[in-house]
Each structure stands twice: as structure tokens, then as C-alpha cells.
């Protein structure tokens, strides 16, 4: 079986019912994509199939075929995707475990809707975060989409880009 992951072909010999998540994590060895629930509820395992977000824990590897798989490791080469830049500037992550999925979901939203409304964000961002970073995720999408300036968001937290060091 062949998987096209992040522009590279991987020959893998696995059971057809192995979920794509585990093929990515344990066979190919890319561990940025996370296991959270195994039943497509939490979104920690979000990857792109041909550019569309998908929950890899619930997709048998045999059904992927030649689809182009993109994982968090390939969203950008150097943390320069607008979502990653906003996430860093606002310190969106707390523990970080769910954030691979959050970043992938947010980047997919911006690709589909470059200037999402709050309602668009509500609808698109169904990934679970147990630390409770939702308010900062919303802020981050506003900044990444250019609808709010970083300084404007930081001001609501009594901070400025300079005071953040």
C-alpha cells in the first residue's frame, strides 16, 4: 500500500482496517497528529485529504487511496502559516496537545472562508480543548484572517506587542 503524505510517497505494509491516524503516527512516524478519542469526536487527529480537513482516527487506511495527505508537520516549513504566526503571537496553546488539530482546523477554515465571521468560527471549530483555549483560538483566527490587528487583540488583555517581550 502507498500513502502520499506531505508530498512524499510511503510504501507501507499494514492491515487495511488500520485507521489512517495510526499509520501516520506509528508506521510513518509523524507524531504531530494526535490521538484523543478514536471516534472522530475531538478533532486532535485532523489532517487534510486533498486539502479538506478529515479526522484520521476514523478513516481506514485502505480507503485513502491516492489522496494527498497533509499533516501538521507540513502546514508550513517554518511556523510561517498565518495561523501559526497568530497562535505564537497570542500564545494560544496551553498544554498544546490538541493544538495540532486546532491549527489544522483553523487553517482549513481560512482557506475556505478567508474572512470568517464569529458564526463561521463557531461552526468550523468543533475540536475539543480541555485547557480551555477557545477564547484565544477565536482571537487567533481573527488575527490570522487580518480582521483584527494583533495590537488590538492584545489591548483587550492589557498587553502590547512590545510588552510581550
Amino acid at each position, binding site marked *: 500500500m502507498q500513502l502520499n503524505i506531505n508530498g512524499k510517497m510511503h510504501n507501507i505494509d499494514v492491515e487495511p482496517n488500520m485507521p489512517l491516524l495510526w499509520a501516520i503516527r506509528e508506521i510513518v512516524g509523524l507524531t504531530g497528529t494526535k490521538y484523543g478519542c478514536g471516534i472522530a469526536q475531538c478533532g486532535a487527529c485532523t489532517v487534510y485529504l486533498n486539502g479538506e480537513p478529515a479526522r484520521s482516527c476514523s478513516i481506514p487506511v485502505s480507503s485513502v487511496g491516492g489522496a494527498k495527505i497533509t499533516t501538521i508537520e507540513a502546514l508550513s516549513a517554518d511556523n510561517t502559516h498565518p495561523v501559526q504566526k497568530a497562535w505564537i503571537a497570542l500564545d494560544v496553546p496551553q498544554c498544546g496537545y490538541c493544538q495540532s488539530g486546532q491549527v489544522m482546523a483553523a487553517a482549513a477554515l481560512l482557506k475556505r472562508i478567508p474572512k470568517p465571521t464569529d458564526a463561521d468560527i*463557531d461552526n468550523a471549530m468543533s475540536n475539543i480543548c480541555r485547557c480551555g483555549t477557545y477564547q484565544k483560538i*477565536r482571537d487567533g483566527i481573527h488575527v490570522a484572517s487580518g480582521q483584527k490587528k494583533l495590537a488590538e487583540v492584545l489591548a483587550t488583555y492589557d498587553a502590547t506587542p512590545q510588552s510581550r517581550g
Partner: protein
Amino acid sequence: MTKNTDKQVDQMNLESQSRRRFIVDTSFIGGGLMLGIGSFASIEAMAGTIYNQNTMMNASSPEVNAWVNIKPDDTVVIRIVRSEMGQGTRTGLAQLVAEELECDWKKIITESPTPGQSVARKRVWGEFSTGGSRGIRISEDYVRRGAAGARIMLLQAAANEWNVPLSEVTVNKGVISHKSGKKTTYGKVAEAAAKITPPDPKSITLKKPSEWKVAGKPLARLDTADKVNGTKVFGVDLQLPGMLCAAIKASPVFGGKVKSYDENKVKNLRGVKGVVKVGDNAVAVVADTFWRAKIALEALPIEWDEAGNGNVNQADIEKRLKDGLEEVGDFWQRKEGDAVAAIQSSGKVVEAVYYTPYRSHANMEPMNCTVKFTPEKVEAWVPTQNGEASHAALAEAAGLPLTQCEVYKLDPGTGLGRRGGTQDYVTQAVGIAKNFPGVPVKMMWSREEDMTHDYYHPIAMAKMRAGIDANGNFTGMHIKVAGQSINSTVAPMAIKNNKDVRQLQGLYEEPGDAQLGYKFPSLLTEYVMKNTHVPVGPWRGVNTNQNGIFMEVFMDECAKAAGKDSLAFRQAIMKDYPKHLAVLNAAAKRSNWDKPLPKGVHRGIAQFMGYASYSACVAEVSVTDNIVKIHKLTFALNCGHVVNPYVVREQVEGSVVMALSAVFNPEITVENGRIKQTNFDSYPLLRLAQNPKVDTVLVPTFDFWGGVGEPTICVVGPAVINAISAALGKPLRNFPLIREGLSIA
């Protein structure tokens, strides 16, 4: 009477697991066997360095002291022993050290000594435990003194080199100057400084917060970049040479044991390397990958001895608690006047019975631990809130002294109280790895195993009674809580004469930690311990969660009965508690309590104290067809000192999400002795669309050090519940609110 704070209980808990062994081991070290730092630098341990750059592996340059190591290129390495699980303690402690050290913030990195290194150096870094919102408040004094001591040694080294008095030497961002124009840097004098006799820590005068330049500022966190591109390595991500993976299933009924299993059914499945019994209550499948271990375990027939607990159901447990409310408490914690008589003779008696459920931690990263076992030494890679507790559990399970055990901590994918004192997952991982000597084995729990084998937030009920006189003032308050005791599960030695003060956290008379902020003419508080076979443990906010709801929701019921505004009603009995009152007033002011709201929007307010910090919250909600929309939550928090206001606000925002999940979403229940909910479909958590706007005003008074991660969680629920009650015009007493037919929009 001294209360058992979380710190003390945690310490006792640690003692119960390890103190005896710890003392034995440290005396052994004192006898001459001193392990050098990095003595476990095996290939896998080096891999540990690669996987977690924060693990301190060796002191490549001479350290100035235990807290600070400065490299020739002026890089300042700050040692942090508290765990970082998202709460920002790594950054906050580094800010405190950098402040006293007077180094360049842009040149600092952090590293974490291991528990083994701590043992070898007689606990020079103090305790590792990271729970009870103590990461900063308990370490701040000694880490700042350590940093200030290092600064004095560095300056003395420069003064010696220049042959000038110390008093003529100054430093700015790690650059040392003398009035003659001479300049040098920390990196250049560090080696000489390391040889200078350290100053007596008690002789050091620490900076006042008004002098802070690095601490107190909303600096960016030190550990964000690798959380946005998948490169941060969590425990579940470890890949060590030759590693095997294990999936485990413990008895679904708590207290049950393994009766039999048929490994022939799975031993020939692809990748399977073995099936092992773990302790007397669990079975694990070991395979080349976790997924193969997991599906083989699902196919493995296991028979359980349910130890007589298989017939316990939720209704039995609730009846047990309800019966408890009719009993006299195990003790009277506070008995001020004769509240029972005062209430009975009052013109108006208010009474309410409340219920709060079991809750699962549901850490996003399920429990996991990787162990490499040999008869001579055992190493573990652990996402832990308490490296020393992990170390103790490892030694206990391995049957080796601490000096032959080592723990490499990984930043947990949240902890929330689950990964502190309860190290069952380490014990299990050792039990599996013992069967594969020399081979690292990564044990991971499935989500289902994690949700059904937690140490749950304890179930509780409360019967609250108050008397109100003709003027609408209190005559007395009687609080009776019945429910499970955390200490009975995790720290039985903390229960003295059947009295467990910890369960009434937040209702204490003593100031400083979790003091009740109201003065009643008479007061009786009592706790009726009603334990079950379900294990319970600390869960972010611990017992302030339910006690905050009981107290503050009932306060609103009393205000209504007295015909008074819920804010003014509270203020009237808070004169003796100025700090509680100040945060209440700050939240009211910030939320424009006096100004009218749009039609259909209603307010609720609550204040409570926990973890040495004072919190208040105002909620604004509207309710349509039993669906609650929370428009805004406004907080005031006095945590004494604010080390990083940006991170503090993020902790408040996080506490909201966890609290609202608990107040609205389905609870954990017991069916046939086991937990009924197994995953996020039956136990959903709050989502982004349901999360309200959070506005936080910080009102530190700089005369104490309070916690941050937990304190605000206990005011979220009651403020929201009180607002919904105001909207509906009826009391709400059963939580989560789906028990009252309500859901969140």
C-alpha cells in the same frame, strides 16, 4: 485548629507512597554513594533529551548554583522542577529567576532536573509536586533567593577580577559594569562565580514588585513554538529504539480482579509480542504498535471477579448520599453559636438540597508511561504533575531503591489533578515492562480506559438551611455536606478520628487558604462521609467546585427570600473579610452591576476563596426555551502577586471552559459497578461555540502569594446558575443543569 491544605495532603500522600523509601535512599546516599548528574545517560536517556529538550541531562558548564547555569556565550539556563502542563509555570518561574538574576530575558532557556538528580543532590530544588495551584506561590521565595544569590556571586566574581569593592559593581541584563568603564558579562565570569561561597539566602533582600522589570509583565511564553507545528513530543509520541507498545485493560468494576483470560485467542495476531497480567486487576497486550496492541486487547476474552461491586448503581450511590443528609455529620467543623436553634426560631427558614456529580478529568492526552526495565535499573518517561511521586511509584513497583530508578518528565497534555498523587499508570507500566527486560515499553490507555479508570471528582450533596429575620438579615447558617472523601481514596492518613476537613474546602474559618468570606450570627458546618467503591481524587479546583456552588447558589436563594439585591446582601456580611469583599466589588464594578441590562439578559454573581486567592464572577445570560446563552463572564481575581498577567488571564479563561463543561454537560454515572460513560460521545465537553466572552480584572494586593490555575473555577458555576435562576425566576439545585432540563447554546 490547623487545616490540612492541599499542600499538606499532597505531602502526606507522597509520604505514604515514598517517604519511607525516600528516607532510606537519601541516608544511603549520605553514606557515600553519590550519583553524578547524568549517570543514566543511556541511549534512551539521550533520546529523552532529544524528545524533551527541557530534561536536564548534564551540567556542561559549571553551574553558578542549583538554579542557574550560565554558558560562556551568556546563555542563561534556568532550572525549573515544577511540571508544565499548559498553566505557564515554566515561564512564570523563569521570570522570577530572571528578575532577581538581572539577566537578559532574551538569552534564557529552561531545563528540568530529573527526580533522580534531585535525590542525588538531597532535594536541592525542593518539591516537584505541581498541584493545588502551588507551582509559583510555594516556590517563589526560594527560587528568587537562589537567583539573587547567583547574581551576588557573579558580581563578586567580576569585582574580584577587577579588584574593586562589590558595591561599585552594577549589572544590567547580564552585562556587569564598573564606574571605571570596565565591562564584562555573566558568561565570562560564571566559572569564577561558581567557586565563590554562596551568600546566606536569608541575608538577601528581594526586590519589591514595584521594582520588577521582567516579573509582573505579560511576556510571551517560552514554550509555544513547537505546539503549533506538531514537533512537541508528548509521552504518547515517544519512539525509542526497539520500543514495544502496550494497551491495557483494568477491571471495569472498581475493586475487581482478573479471573482468567485466553491469550491463545490473540497471541498469533499480527504484531503481538505477549499478553501479560498486570497486578491482580489488569491485563495488557504488548505489540509492535499501540494500535495492534489495542485491537488484540479488544479481542481478548477476559473474565473478571467483580468483588461484589458489580451490582452497585448510580441510584444506590445517590440514595446513600441523600440518607447522609439526614444523619449527624461525622464532626462539626465550625460551630459558632447555636445555628440549629437560631434558624428554627427565625421568622423565615430557607432550605435547599443540592446535588453535584462525579466528573472525569478527561485529559486530552490519555494516561501513558514508557518504562525500560532491567534488574539493575529502571527508567521511565512520564507525563507527570509530580516527578517525585512518579519516581516513588517507579521504585516501589520495580522493587529497586530510588537511586537505581530514574524518571524523565514530559510536559503532560494537561494534568488537572489526575497526574499528581495518583501514579497508577506508572505502576502498571512497570508491571508490563518487567516482562520485557531491556526493552522500552510504551503503555498507553485508550480513551475508553482513561474515562472509565479515573480518580473522579467526588459526588456530593448538601443540605443548606438558613434563618432570616424580619429585617431580612441572617440569624444562622447550617451547612451539611454528604459525599465521597478524596482523602479516603488518595490520602487516608489525612483523615483523623474519622474527620476529613478537606471536604469542606472554602468554608474554613482560618484565613490564608480557603476561608469562607461571610460572617453569620451563628454557623454550623458538618460533613457526612459517604464513600463508595468508586475512586475519587483531586480535579481542578477540587472541593471548592461543589462547595462554591452550594454556598453561593444558596446565598442567592437567601437573598431572594430576604427580598434583597444579591450583591448588597453579600456585602452586608463581608465587613470582616475585606479581601473577599474587594474582589466581589471589583467584579461588580467591572461588569457594571448597577447599570440595566438589555431586555431578556439576567445577571448572577458569586465569590469564593481557594488556593490562597480570592475570586469573584458576574455572569450575564439569557434563556430561551430552556437553552442558555451565556453572553459574558466578568472576573475579578486577587492572587496576591501577578507574575505574568497574560498567562493569569489565560488560566481564568481555561477555568471557565472546564467549569461550564461540568455545570452543563452530562455527568459521570455508575452502572453495574462500572462507569457508564466511555468517550466524548457519552461524556461531551464544552466546545468553542458555547464558550462565552471572558473579561478578567486583576486586583493583586502584593501582601501574599496566591494560586492561579484553580481559584476561579469555583465561581463560574454559581455565577452562571444564579443568572439562570434570575432569568427563570426559580431555584436550580441539581447539577449538571441537564438534570433541570437546561442546556447551553
